[in-house]
């Protein structure tokens, strides 16, 4: 503000003079430029105040300790959820269910496990999925922004998303498939999926290991080391962690831009959003022996106009034994799918058509 007043005063002084010297002209021009930049910055920051990332609640539960003194979260956890990432349109303005409302909504929205197959069985017959939905009174997994929806994409990210989605329909190569269909990785952070979401938390002095039955393994050092160098990129990011009371806090960067085919099973992020600039902060907040409130906050100003957070309850499941997933070893579907596309293109070309 002082700068602006000084500039105006300088301008008045200059106007009183009959003629402006060359040096004075340069000075005024420079001051004008500085002021313009300052005003622009002030204007932009007034329009879009930098949103502070969501702060998850601290744990009031005092977890038992490992022999070496860390909070002990070891065991198998699962996180089946009937609540969606985004709040449904008919629940706008309503952030929480009552118990009765939750029960009614869960009943109405549970997948059809009827043995009647006349309506089709979907990609996988839901009858065979061992569902154990965890009670969650939030009407969306996204808890920030408060409307329970993904924040707006930046204009560049929206343009890029549309390009990636359009290209994915071409099925020109394996790159147009979700990393899960390529048996490489699911998404970190992970949202609910129909099956194989059992997750083992293993601990040793200075480390936490998170083994997701389906594909992903995360090795989290707790010794305060820095992230790996910028030129090494991981499908599930590079995690480093620390304890805050009984809460495990994990900071992940170094995601690869190749992780972008979202929207599928277990995906927390929609299709067409490359992960390369993600800064992921996770809070594993134990609230009882059997329940962890998991919070994932994604901050990427090149993609979203503000950080956002989802909250997914995890429940201990001592009867769940993690089994080998061996996805790639039997993955003939990817080859058959790509080959099918090429065969159909060739047939269309033979008939003089262009396959769309």
């Amino acid at each position: 503000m002082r700068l602006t007043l000084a500039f105006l005063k300088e301008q008045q002084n200059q106007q009183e003079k009959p003629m402006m010297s060359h040096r004075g002209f340069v000075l005024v021009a420079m001051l004008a430029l500085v002021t313009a930049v300052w005003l622009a910055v002030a204007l932009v920051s007034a329009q879009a105040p930098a949103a502070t990332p969501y702060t998850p609640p601290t744990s009031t539960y005092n977890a038992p300790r490992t022999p070496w003194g860390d909070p002990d979260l070891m065991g198998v956890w699962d996180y089946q959820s009937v609540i969606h990432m985004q709040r449904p349109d008919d629940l706008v303005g309503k952030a929480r269910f009552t118990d009765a409302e939750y029960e009614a909504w869960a009943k109405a929205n549970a997948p059809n496990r009827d043995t009647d197959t006349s309506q089709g069985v979907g990609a996988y017959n839901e009858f065979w999925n061992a569902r154990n939905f965890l009670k969650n009174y939030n009407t969306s997994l996204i808890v920030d922004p408060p409307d329970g929806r993904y924040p707006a994409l930046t204009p560049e990210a929206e343009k890029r998303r549309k390009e990636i989605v359009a290209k994915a329909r071409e099925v020109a190569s394996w790159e147009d498939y979700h990393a899960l269909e390529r048996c490489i990785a699911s998404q970190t952070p992970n949202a609910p999926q129909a099956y194989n979401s059992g997750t083992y938390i293993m601990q040793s002095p200075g480390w936490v290991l998170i083994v997701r039955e389906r594909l992903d393994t995360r090795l989290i050092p707790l010794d305060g080391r820095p992230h790996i160098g910028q030129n090494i990129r991981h499908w599930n990011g590079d995690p480093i962690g620390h304890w805050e009371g009984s809460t495990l806090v994990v900071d992940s960067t170094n995601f690869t831009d190749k992780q972008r085919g979202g929207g599928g099973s277990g995906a927390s992020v929609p299709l067409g959003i490359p992960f390369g600039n993600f800064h992921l902060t996770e809070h594993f907040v134990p609230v009882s022996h059997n329940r962890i409130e998991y919070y994932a906050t994604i901050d990427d100003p090149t993609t979203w106009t503000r950080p956002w957070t989802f909250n997914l309850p995890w429940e201990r499941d001592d009867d769940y034994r993690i089994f080998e997933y061996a996805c790639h070893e039997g993955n003939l579907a990817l080859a058959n799918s790509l080959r099918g596309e090429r065969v159909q293109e060739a047939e269309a070309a033979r008939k003089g058509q262009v396959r769309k």
Partner: protein
Amino acid sequence: MPSVVRWSIAAIAAAAVVAVIILAVAWSAAQGVPPQSRIPRTLDGKPDLNGIWQAMNTANYDLEDHGTAPSSVIVTGAVGAIFPGESVVEGGRIPYRPEALAKRDGNRKSSMPGKLGRILEADPEVNCFLPGVPRATYLPHPFQIFQSPKVIWIVYQYSYARREIPLDKPSKAPIESWMGWSNGHWEGDTLVVDVTAFNDLTWFDRAGNYHSDALHVIERYTPLSANHLMYEARIEDPQVFTRPWTITMPLYRRIDRNVRLLEFKCPEVVEELHLGQYRKVTPSQ
């Protein structure tokens, strides 16, 4: 005898006695102290195996004796050559049944097809398939042991293969798998892991040494020092071998600054090999 000479002889004799004592103490310190007192231990008194380990040998090329040889993919030159190494098999040779030895030799011929496609006759490592046990241990990648009183997990950098090894409640495999079904227990300072329920799709090395689904592996991890383990795997498979046999090798702790396993998600690495014929654009990577 002059007193100076007598005094000198006494001094030399005394010095010699002191020297002998010092040497004896040093020798007994080197020889007599059991190494077990120098290995790190967890708070429950077991050897502490936590950490990142790696074999430093050429067993993944061939468990048996093997000299230097060119790669079957000639264009890879010295980079793809077979590095020489002596056998890690006790007694030197794997005791194959005659017909099984012929199959091993066939495997060896087809191990590196040198052409595109998902060729199941190739070494499973070419196709980025899970490596099985004990091969996971001596792949040219580190692995990390996570140890608690009730359970041990091992994660291998290669394709993030992983094993859960319960120590308190032995259980039976529900079905066969690539990495097998592990149950562990302590015998003194040795971690013993019994592994069963393998499929018949993994090999022991790039040289075609193989097994059937009757494979039974007993691994022994014995600490030698804070930074060395002795690894032993006893291999039993009456369908393929005339008797059980054992491999032995040291494992070395990786002590590099901030060492950690990095992603080697090899399904991505073999996409061009397996799927290249079905794409119509050049992938961006």
